């Protein structure tokens, strides 16, 4: 199958200090060499703690911030090389839905204008058909005609996220990046939005890249999951597989942290101690070694590459056995 998105060694380093005629003193390595593929029609999830670079990853994929290095290929074309008016084309193929629907909609624009913006920018619709297209899209995400001329503040969080979805979908993109699409919503609304996402995926033949720290949500919607730690992917695998048999100690610790409803179950758990090391000055060798119960001298010296074990990719010198 041809790959929809192929990300290779993507890096985003933010300079610290520095200015006119002054070199930056250091870099925050928010995304530090991330590689993965997404197949058409797939739901790929990226999980990780806060501050591990998930959101930076999403924003650099879309070039909302320019990546420092690496390549992002969409249907075989490296979009990082697209300049000028070509760059605009990225957004017809890839769209994003942000985490917080309260801040991602312009407070002074009518819903009609918010949703039609993309059509206008890309010249995709005649003026006479804009209304129809917008209304059609609103109805597909579960809103209706009377919502066209309302302002965002008149809507609930779930409804706002629907508007944000309509705004992205109206361009008929191939890939939608969902940056924590449900974490700002009430639990009851979360499931509705998730079900809507699944429906829309079928209807429009979409591919999703979902970013989240909510493992139970990810388990429900994702086909494959990549686990991110300190700007790097440490494990990538099929969702069921990964949850059943985590191979990277960090993945196991994340899965172990999901609360169990059954108090009698005593599992052997990995409980993490300490904090995530600073991405300015990551540990030598394996970046997880400072918190890993199995780390030894080898881990401090050699950085483990992301290697395939059957259809699983793991970056660990001592992957866990079943």
């Amino acid at each position, binding site marked *: 199958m041809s790959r929809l998105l192929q990300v290779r060694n993507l890096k985003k380093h933010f300079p610290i200090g520095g200015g006119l005629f002054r070199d930056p003193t250091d870099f925050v390595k928010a995304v530090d060499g991330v590689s993965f593929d997404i197949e058409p029609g797939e739901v790929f999830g990226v999980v990780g703690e806060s501050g591990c670079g998930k959101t930076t990853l999403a924003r650099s994929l879309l070039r909302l911030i320019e990546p420092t290095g690496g390549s992002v290929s969409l249907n075989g074309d490296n979009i990082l090389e697209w300049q000028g008016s070509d760059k605009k084309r990225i957004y017809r193929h890839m769209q994003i839905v942000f985490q917080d629907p309260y801040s991602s909609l312009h407070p*002074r624009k009518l819903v009609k204008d918010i949703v039609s913006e993309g059509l206008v920018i*890309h010249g995709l619709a005649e003026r006479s058909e804009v209304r129809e297209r917008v209304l059609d899209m609103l109805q597909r995400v579960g809103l209706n005609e009377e919502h066209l001329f309302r302002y965002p503040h008149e809507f609930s969080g779930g409804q706002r996220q629907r508007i944000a979805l309509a705004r992205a979908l109206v361009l008929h993109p191939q890939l939608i990046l969902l940056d924590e699409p449900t974490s700002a919503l009430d639990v009851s609304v979360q499931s509705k939005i998730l079900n809507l996402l699944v429906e829309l995926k079928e209807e429009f033949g979409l591919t999703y890249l979902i970013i989240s720290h909510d493992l139970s949500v990810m388990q429900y919607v994702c086909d494959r999951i990549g686990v991110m730690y300190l700007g790097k992917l440490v494990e990538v695998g099929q969702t069921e597989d990964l949850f059943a048999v985590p191979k990277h100690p960090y993945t196991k610790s994340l899965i172990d942290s999901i609360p169990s409803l059954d108090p009698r179950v005593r599992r052997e758990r990995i409980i993490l101690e300490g904090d995530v090391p600073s991405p300015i000055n990551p540990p030598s060798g394996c970046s997880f070694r400072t918190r890993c119960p199995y780390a030894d001298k080898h881990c401090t010296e050699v950085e483990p590459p992301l290697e395939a074990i059957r259809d699983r990719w793991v970056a660990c010198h001592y992957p866990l056995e079943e």
Partner: protein
Amino acid sequence: MSVATGWVKDFQHRYKSQLESALYFWSYLRRNTLSVIGILVIFVFILVAAFGPYFAPYNPVKGETSDRLQGPSAEHWFGTDQLGRDIFSRVIHGARVSLRIAMIVAVIAGTVGTVVGVTSGYFGALVDDLLMRVTDMFFAFPKLVLAMAVAAALGPDLENVIFAIAIASWPVYARLARGEALAVREEDYIEAIRALGAGRMRILFLHVLPMCITPIIIQVTLDMGFIILTAAGLGFIGFGAQPPTPEWGIMIAEGRNFITSQWWLSTFPGLAILVTVLGFNLLGDGLRDVLDPRLTR
């Protein structure tokens, strides 16, 4: 459903939303007695400026020399000046001159200031440094002195006064707009619009700018009084409009020789300035309280 009925429905939805926000706005403004007084004063001022000259009892520039320096009476409500011109009529015509100055200055200075400020704040970096240093240069002069200098350099004339005051007042709006733009450009909804593929100019003028206008409108309203005052001041010292224009500042200047014996020459135009400036200030304060979400909700 046909497209036509669709648009009718849209209009109703839209109208409802606007009406609701207007009512909401009014309900807040109404609670503040002083701003209601301000609104009334400004309303009367605008009415007088617009229609007053058609009802003014006498010609404002041609007087009867035989009637000179008469005190207030039933015939001449505010009395007459040294050339026998009816002061009541001149004050009414003066309202039109003042309103014209205030409005044109507000539009020019407000527009220039907003565009410069928003551009500066949105692009940041070198553009910001450059534009803000230029703004700083204007800030280095006291407003009135700068307006005087420009008016003197251009020659005394009503148009030049407008230009001079505009030059002296735009930097304030630029600063305000820049501050707002700096905050707005970091907002998620601006990034969301970038993620749709919008160009910088589109984002700047259609998305950032509308969010920066509210504080400017408040500031412009507050400054209206100052603008009228400055125009009158320039008229008073002879840098502004020239006689026989019925301008309040000139009228005060002309009356100052008679202030001890014929008080009405300077007093009535002075009162007109006082009331108008006060009205704008009260309205400005009220608007600020309603429109600035940091102070209300």
